[in-house]
């Protein structure tokens, strides 16, 4: 027994020694995602994407000869765990930058730590509060909630809709969306005639919809990131309601559309172009990148690509581009990201500046519709 142990120790030591001879010091990047817990369906594609990128980068010889080491931590979608994970990554692993967390709440919780430790953070969460006001060390890759609300209202104006009923989920994403919808309604001449919510695990929303039926709403906005939004779509059909339905960018997962079945036909929502990569014109700047990510991801993981994994893809590629240009220096990485222009990502074409740490405009969104269980660009 002792002998076996000795051999193992020797083997591990030799392996380590050989490794250090062969390769230069790895560049360590932290990744904090909600891999389990209530936001797992967001965190999982993000984790998969991070693993895929690490493999691809190292297969091509790493970053300037240095292997890329992504240290992935699970936040379970909870603030306390996210804070612990970030502290571990900074203090023990001494990472150069961190991507994530997945959710807006967990991102807000780790911001003070990042600012104090002076480590760049590229968040994969959507809430505008993350980058407004601008914080020196914090960036994010998803499109802004406010831009999603604006795109929805623009489409409504085009369709001559002025009275809407809104229904939002009671978790962070839905609450933030509700705020943005109410904020921009007057600007676009839209009256919110009913304002209802549902819990993330609710099994039925017919009561709220029945209430909408009693109003003169011309359209409904259903803003959520939880699977329950598919139930709402089914309930709407059940009640025989035919007014147009708008969803948020939180609907950007084909599984939700499938869960809603044919009730989802004709739904309109703003989302990144990843979902309609095939239908983009050949000269679109994002087309090549989107098709590559989609193909790589779907071949490797045998499951549909989602925009959420795309946010991690953009965040990591920003950090990798910075590492390639300026090397392992946290302050220089931050400066590099802040001055990145015309960076083509899955979420859009990023143009960062000292005043804008999102780098995307409302044009990053495409209005998308659903037909026969497939995402298509809306006309």
């Amino acid at each position: 027994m002792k002998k076996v142990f000795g051999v193992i120790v020797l083997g591990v030591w030799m392996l380590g020694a050989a490794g250090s001879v062969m390769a230069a010091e790895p560049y360590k990047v932290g990744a904090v995602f909600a891999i389990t817990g209530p936001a797992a369906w967001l965190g999982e594609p993000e984790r998969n994407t991070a693993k895929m990128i690490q493999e691809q980068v190292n297969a091509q010889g790493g970053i300037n000869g240095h292997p890329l080491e992504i240290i992935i931590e699970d936040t379970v979608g909870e603030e306390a765990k996210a804070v612990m994970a970030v502290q571990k990554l900074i203090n023990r692993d001494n990472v150069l930058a961190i991507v994530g967390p997945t959710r807006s709440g967990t991102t807000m919780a780790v911001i003070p730590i990042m600012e104090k430790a002076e480590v760049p953070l590229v968040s994969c969460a959507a809430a505008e509060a993350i980058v407004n006001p601008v914080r020196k060390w914090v960036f994010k890759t998803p499109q802004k909630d406010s831009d999603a609300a604006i795109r929805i209202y623009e489409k409504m104006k085009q369709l001559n809709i002025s009275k809407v009923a809104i229904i939002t989920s009671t978790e962070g994403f839905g609450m933030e969306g509700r705020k943005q919808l109410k904020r921009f309604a007057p600007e676009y001449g839209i009256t919110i005639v009913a304002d209802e919510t549902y819990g993330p695990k609710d099994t039925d929303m017919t009561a709220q919809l029945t209430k909408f039926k009693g109003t003169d709403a011309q359209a409904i906005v259903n803003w959520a990131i939880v699977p329950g939004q598919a139930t709402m779509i089914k309930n709407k059909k059940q009640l025989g309601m035919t007014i147009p339905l708008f969803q948020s960018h939180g609907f950007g997962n084909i599984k939700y559309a499938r869960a809603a079945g044919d009730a989802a036909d004709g739904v309109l929502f703003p989302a990144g172009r990843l979902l309609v990569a095939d239908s983009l014109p050949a000269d679109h700047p994002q087309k090549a990148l989107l098709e590559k990510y989609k193909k790589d991801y779907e071949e490797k993981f045998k499951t549909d690509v989602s925009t959420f994994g795309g946010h991690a893809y953009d965040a990591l590629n920003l950090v990798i581009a910075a590492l390639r240009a300026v090397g392992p220096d946290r302050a220089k990485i931050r400066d590099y990201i802040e001055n990145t222009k015309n960076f083509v990502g899955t979420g859009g074409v990023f143009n960062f500046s000292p005043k804008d740490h999102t780098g995307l405009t409302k044009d990053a969104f495409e209005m998308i519709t659903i037909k026969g269980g497939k995402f298509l660009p809306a006309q």
Partner: protein
Amino acid sequence: MSLFSQILQFLLTGITIGTIYGMVALGFNIIYNATGIINFAQGEFVMLGGMFMVWFTTVLKIPMIAAFALSVIMVTLIGALFERLAIYPLKRPSVLILIMITLAGSIIMKGSAMLFWGKETYTLPHFSGEEPFYLFGATILPQTLWILGIMFVVVIILAGFFNFTMLGKAMRACAVNPTAASLVGISVKKMVLLSFALSAALGATAGIIITPVALMEYDRGAILALKGFAAAVLGGLGNGVGAVVAGLLIGILESLGAGLISSGYKDAIALLVLLLVLFVKPSGIFGVSEASKLKEF
């Protein structure tokens, strides 16, 4: 839409949700009656029922009726296995230990479901189409009728079982006084096993019939268990009729609360009523206070 048909719609919605709460509450009661504990894995039985049904019908392509039976059998076996592995070996079970065990069981079941089926949300085709019926301006899905019908049949079968069969009477005897029951030759341990199997089957049935309308994912169990538990307490722990009535009451209150006041306060309204009832009548609406004093928990 007129106020009348709106209220009718709220009531119909409430009855549908309430039926599910009632069925979960019944599951709580069966185990509570046999063992005196609250089985926190009850919601997991509901989740497993729905997930097995989805798996059998969509992946293994088994026809609906056979898949229904198979799903119930699978979950019943899981319930029985859970009792045999975790509850049965205990030498001197105290209420607290039993509760911790069921809690652990629920976490294990949830975790295994996540590993096996993933984190996705699944759906099932409705049993007989999705064309709603119209009733004075309100709509009812055929699935709602299935839910109500199956619940009705289940309650009748359970009532018959507990009141008219030897086995059912033996289970009730265990609930009243385990020591006396074993003195007259009833195997209490066997009754405990049976209670777990029965409530697993009940939970699975609930899970199968709601999945077409409510969808199902691996972590849905906890919230259903919470609402079902509220219904069980409101109706008086251990009381079958109470569970059904209280389940319906909570469902209707939620729906009316969401429709007439605000959906933001929906859960609060239902829980507020629960608290009020418990302040006035701690043994629940149908509970007998003398009987509840004799219970440990």
